[in-house]
């Protein structure tokens, strides 16, 4: 109980943690978040573990929101033939 925060919603914004979580897909992040919450709700984790897991869960929530808030859709185009030939989608086709 050395670094028990006064507020129950600590805002750690640990950059290392954020970077780690940014590598996760939305689905992976949601899945891990659910696992953390289930463990917490069972109340089996030690207090310090709970706080550590909370920090991670918080980063996961931010990761998910970041994905959902993405406004620009990435649309690429390629002809079926070129795709089959192994070309990459950024071949400058702009058929729209």
């Amino acid at each position, binding site marked *: 109980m050395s670094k028990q925060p006064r507020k129950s919603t600590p805002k750690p914004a640990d950059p290392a943690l954020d970077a780690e979580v940014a590598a996760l897909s939305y689905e992976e992040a*949601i899945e891990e*978040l659910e696992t953390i919450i289930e463990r917490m709700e069972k*109340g089996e984790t030690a207090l310090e573990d709970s706080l550590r897991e909370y920090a991670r869960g918080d980063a996961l929530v931010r990761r998910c929101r970041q994905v959902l808030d993405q406004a620009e859709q990435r649309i690429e185009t390629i002809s079926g033939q070129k795709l089959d030939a192994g070309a990459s*989608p950024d071949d400058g*086709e702009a058929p729209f």
Partner: protein
Amino acid sequence: MARRPFDPSLARGGLFDAPGESAPLSVSQASERILRAVEGIGRVRVVGEVSNFSSPRHWYFTLKDDESQIGCVMWASRTSGVGFVPATGMEVIVTGTITHYGKGGRTQIDVQSMERRGEGLLQARYEALRRELDEKGWFRAERRRPLPAFPRRVAVITSFQADALQDVLKTARIRAPFVDILVVGVPVQGEAAAPAVAQAIAAVDRRADELGIDAMIVTRGGGSIEDLWAFNERIVAEAVFNAKTPVISAIGHESDVTIIDFVADHRASTPTQAVMELFPDRHAEGEQVDSLSGRMNRSVRRRVEDARRHLSMLARHPLFRSPRAPIDLRRADLGRLAVRLASGTRATHSAARHRLADACARFERHRPSIRQAAARERLHSFDARLHAAARRTLADLRGQVSAADRQLRLLGPGETLARGWSLTFAADGSLLRSAADAGAGQELRTQFADGSVRSRVEPSSETPSSTLFGPHGG
């Protein structure tokens, strides 16, 4: 097929000149014979391309192929059953009887029914392939792959020009702008369509990992059965069947069901519907994240509060109110023991003394000299019993004392010594329990709370005090 000028020499022995018959036929007679001859052909099915179509009421048109043509007529009473209006260039199959119209000098088909060419053929092919693949188990629900709950990137296989593509992009932009899209352009109708679509499906599937594609949508808008035909081809069905990446098909309108729809992991009725079913909804997802976040916050808050409550409960325990509490408890026990020990000792001695006085009194009462010896004897025995009893009692007491002493040692004698008690040890380190044990000249060590002193016993004629555990003055 230009008509040649009439040449009687050629006509001789011809079709209509009965051998040996010299009288010529009238045109009508000839026409009549033609009519009879062609009617003998009976019912025919003829396929050809429509030209010169006109329809004042009845349909008149010519059916032709590369080399020949034949006139057709279809009476208004029958045209309503056709279901489409023929147009020049259309390939149709007509069913009817060949007849000869004498007034116009035309041999033509009296059409009873008409279908578009390919329609029946395609229908038959469609049914055959559908049955075959169904029997192979390609349509079984359990072999359908589940759609990804949250695709990272979706390939859309369609024509770049298709309205279907615009529908897909518009819906995807609103619903899930965070899902990337790769549009794979293919022809979606005509001869080239089926191989191109199959190739694109296979290519997307092969490169799915590399391109991060989690699912594909194969789509095109509505059209005639010929327009949609590519999606009824075996080659396309095979590509979908072999793909490991989930495939959603959205071909034509709701009512159009193509072979790819049976093989695909999921069939959507329209392109827009395909997006609705594959792309997660940003609002619903946002709600889920909010809900999870709330659950986590509540949970951790509860956990911290539990810990805090537990801590303050521990802090309220008497043991934690004073660190001396357990020692004080023990000291109280010890004090009670000491009191019992002292009063016990006194009681034993006074009882003994009482009995001695009693014996003396009785001895006095039996004074007569003849009994003196016997009485003296008994007195001795009383005395012996008295001593034995005293010794026994003392031994018991000593046991209690040493038990108390052990307890005392456990807790340490410091506190007791501080209250003014002292401990005296013989030279060999043994605790001195009796003045009698202290022989003259013996060296003693006396332990006080704050230290010890050494002393030597002076010779003395005083008898040892019998009140060893009397109130201790020091």
